[in-house]
């Protein structure tokens, strides 16, 4: 045995040639080696260039807005300083107050509604309810606001009933109550879906064990449901709080006067009505500070700030629900359903009463619809392309580093798009408005601003739809592409496009729905010459043409709903 070992020579670290067929290597150029040769040949991955361009675009959009604000603040320092007055403090206080109340009223009931739905994994109409709860995600805020007014407003369907109930005339729900109802309408279903997702993630074995041990509803809640809900609670509450603190359209349409105004609406009023850019700068800075704090807290809590349109089907469950509990659960679900479905039904009911035929033939409506569609299309296209570029660059950068820390660029491609959540659309719009207001016609820039800002706003959602698909495809194909030399345009067309087609359609449809219903930037930049459907809707509301507004709301809501259904259909097929 030992004699045979002579034939086996250890080539390293002695460096001796082995078994006769190896020769001693040429002395290595170690110096060259330590210079990391990869950078000389591999920086040319086009995906990284695409990502850098996308990042530059986002940076330019947000940076330009900041430049405008800073320049204005520096120009009129005393004005900006003077704007920190009692009014500003009042507005800031109200912004926080309505967000806190909205969060409480959305999240607490959602805990119990989600639990009720989880306890009954199979009943007729359950899937329909869950789908209905996804609708507010895509429903334009202004449509919902109109639906709520049609239901609870002074002349709403419930006005007569509510008048009798309260004795005297029903005053309507403008002001804090209106804002709260609208925010709960949007965020209760969202919170329910998020909590339900958490409850569905409880392993089936735990439930099997619980039923084997004869656990009743109370101990099951305490030992199984509450621990997972409590874990998700800070994240969900934080997300809802964030959405309420940056809410613009709801407060604009349902808020009443200076007593019920938030920072975002105050920015809009300062620019559009008071022509007071110094005040707008102060308000904007305050708003950014506020959202920054919220986002930082959220990040600490590990919350996901983008939400998700898809929900998995209910797993098999091993529950035995008592009669009393079942009754309670049914009551909870029916109440939540009524609250969410009510404004939607009212939108439809009020909408069909409008003279839809005349409305559709109207020139202004047709122009606004066309403008909306074109801008939403461009915006969705931009959102999809930018998101894809960031995703590809992130993946390429992650592949390139082997075991080392992430570079700044990779961080930027990873979380860069998330920054847009800190800077609400109104703030970006306000910055550019202030920057460009001296140029010939600031309103002529409306289309560019609307498309660009809405695109960037939709990016976090688009990235969520695209990234898993791209990363999975890359996982399978990366080495093969490198081996066969498939790169650049060829790779995009032959290799990446087929698995990305459906997720891209999801991202596109969702981004288009978001952009179509948005009343943010267009509220600042809109004018008689450039109107979108939400803008037209707002102006019809303003001029008390309620019937027209209801009809437009129905049309807008229907289009967004169709887009969202398409998005979720594509999403399901993609994951199937």
């Amino acid at each position, binding site marked *: 045995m030992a004699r045979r*070992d002579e034939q086996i020579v250890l*080539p*390293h670290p002695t460096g001796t040639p082995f078994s006769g067929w190896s020769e001693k290597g040429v002395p290595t150029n170690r110096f060259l080696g330590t210079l990391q040769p990869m950078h000389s040949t*591999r920086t040319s991955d086009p995906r990284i260039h695409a990502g850098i361009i996308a990042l530059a675009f986002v940076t330019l959009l947000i940076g330009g807005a900041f430049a405008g604000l800073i320049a204005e603040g520096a120009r009129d320092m005393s004005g900006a300083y003077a704007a920190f007055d009692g009014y500003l403090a009042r507005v800031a206080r109200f912004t926080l107050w309505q967000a806190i109340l909205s969060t409480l009223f959305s999240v607490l009931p959602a805990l119990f509604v989600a639990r009720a739905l989880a306890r009954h994994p199979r009943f007729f109409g359950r899937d329909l309810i869950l789908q209905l709860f996804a609708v507010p995600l895509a429903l334009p805020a202004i449509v919902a606001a109109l639906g709520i007014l049609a239901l609870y407003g002074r002349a709403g369907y419930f006005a007569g009933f509510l008048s009798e109930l309260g004795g005297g005339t029903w005053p309507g729900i403008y002001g804090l109550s209106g804002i709260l109802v609208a925010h709960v309408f949007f965020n209760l279903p969202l919170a329910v879906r998020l909590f339900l997702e958490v409850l569905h993630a409880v392993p089936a074995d735990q439930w099997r064990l619980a039923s084997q041990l004869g656990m009743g509803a109370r101990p099951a809640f305490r030992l199984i449901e509450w621990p997972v809900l409590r874990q998700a609670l800070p994240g969900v509450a934080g997300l809802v709080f964030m959405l309420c603190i940056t809410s613009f359209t709801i407060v604009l349409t349902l808020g009443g006067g200076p007593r019920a105004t938030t920072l975002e609406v105050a920015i809009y009023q300062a620019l559009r009505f008071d022509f007071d850019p110094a005040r707008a700068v102060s308000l904007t800075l305050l708003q950014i500070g506020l959202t920054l704090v919220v986002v930082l807290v959220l990040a600490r809590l590990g919350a996901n700030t983008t939400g998700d349109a898809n929900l998995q089907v209910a797993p098999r469950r091993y529950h035995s629900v008592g009669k009393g509990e079942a009754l309670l659960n049914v009551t909870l679900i029916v109440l939540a359903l009524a609250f969410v479905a009510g404004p939607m039904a009212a939108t439809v009911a009020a909408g069909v009463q409008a003279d839809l035929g005349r409305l559709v033939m109207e020139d202004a409506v047709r122009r606004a619809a066309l403008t909306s569609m074109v801008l939403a299309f461009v915006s969705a296209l931009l959102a999809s392309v930018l998101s894809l570029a960031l995703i590809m660059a992130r993946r390429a950068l992650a592949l390139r580093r082997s075991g080392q820390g992430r570079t700044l660029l990779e961080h930027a491609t990873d979380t860069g798009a998330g920054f847009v959540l800190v800077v609400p659309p109104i703030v970006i719009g306000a910055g550019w408005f202030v920057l460009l207001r001296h140029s010939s016609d600031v309103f002529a820039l409306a289309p560019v601003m609307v498309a660009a800002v809405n695109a960037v706003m939709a990016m976090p959602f688009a990235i969520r739809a695209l990234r898993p698909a791209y990363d999975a495809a890359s996982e399978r194909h990366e*080495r*093969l592409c490198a081996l066969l030399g498939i*790169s650049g345009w*060829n790779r995009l067309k032959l290799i990446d496009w087929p698995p990305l087609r459906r997720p891209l359609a999801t991202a596109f449809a969702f981004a288009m729905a978001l952009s179509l219903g948005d009343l943010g930037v267009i509220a600042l930049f809109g004018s008689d010459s450039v109107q979108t459907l939400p803008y037209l809707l707002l102006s019809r509301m303003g001029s008390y043409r309620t019937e027209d507004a209801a009809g437009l709301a129905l049309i807008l809501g229907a289009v967004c709903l169709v887009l969202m259904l398409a998005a979720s259909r594509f999403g399901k097929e993609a994951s199937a």
Partner: protein
Amino acid sequence: MNEPVRAGAAVKLESVEFSYGETSFTFDVAFVPGEITAVMGPSGSGKSTLLNLVAGFEMPQAGRVVIGRTDVTLEAPANRPVSMVFQENNLFSHLSVEDNVGLGCSPSFKLSTAERDAVGEALARTGLDGKQCRLPRELSGGERQRVALARVLVRDRPVLLLDEPFASLGPALRDGMLDLVANLQAERRMTVLFVTHQPEDARRIVKNMVFVENGAVAAAGPAEHFFNGGGPEAFRRYIGSENESRDVARKRT
């Protein structure tokens, strides 16, 4: 890009150093041109890393990778005279068998008539006649690896890297695939680096052995010597006693 390194290009790693996170590797080894060499060693010892360095998926921090007479250390994977077959994901799942093989000729699907013929020939040679239009999911695991080998044929590179390509196939199927590889190698005189955990595989088609342990080549030489008990202690420990290794070979990994 495809410099005329014809059949039997020698593959050399000269003081190649590479680290991934905490793990570091040092390879100093040469492979016999025009023959099949098994690369064996415990899991995590660096077998796949060695192949990835040759293929260009990993870049050494120091040292040179030489194929034939050319230093390819800085070359991108596609520019190296190398084909590689992985354990899985050798095919693009949305492309037909024919297209998957065709990508070996041209990364943009623009095939000349001669190339089209070569694809057909390679498919026939690997026993895939009549399956041109199938999608990968309509093939068995063995057939999918045959497609990968067909692409190796049309690419016609002097070096072939096999990274446990048959590990998930049953014993009989694996023997068939091994014989196919042996035949293709005999025909084209490629230098083959074959990573495997199965001593049977190595016995069947391999001439030489490189044993990798702890991120370095621990021993190398004619395979015969290793299997006659001539390998280092670590190698004998790794393959276990004769009977055990048969057992292991029956198990699907």
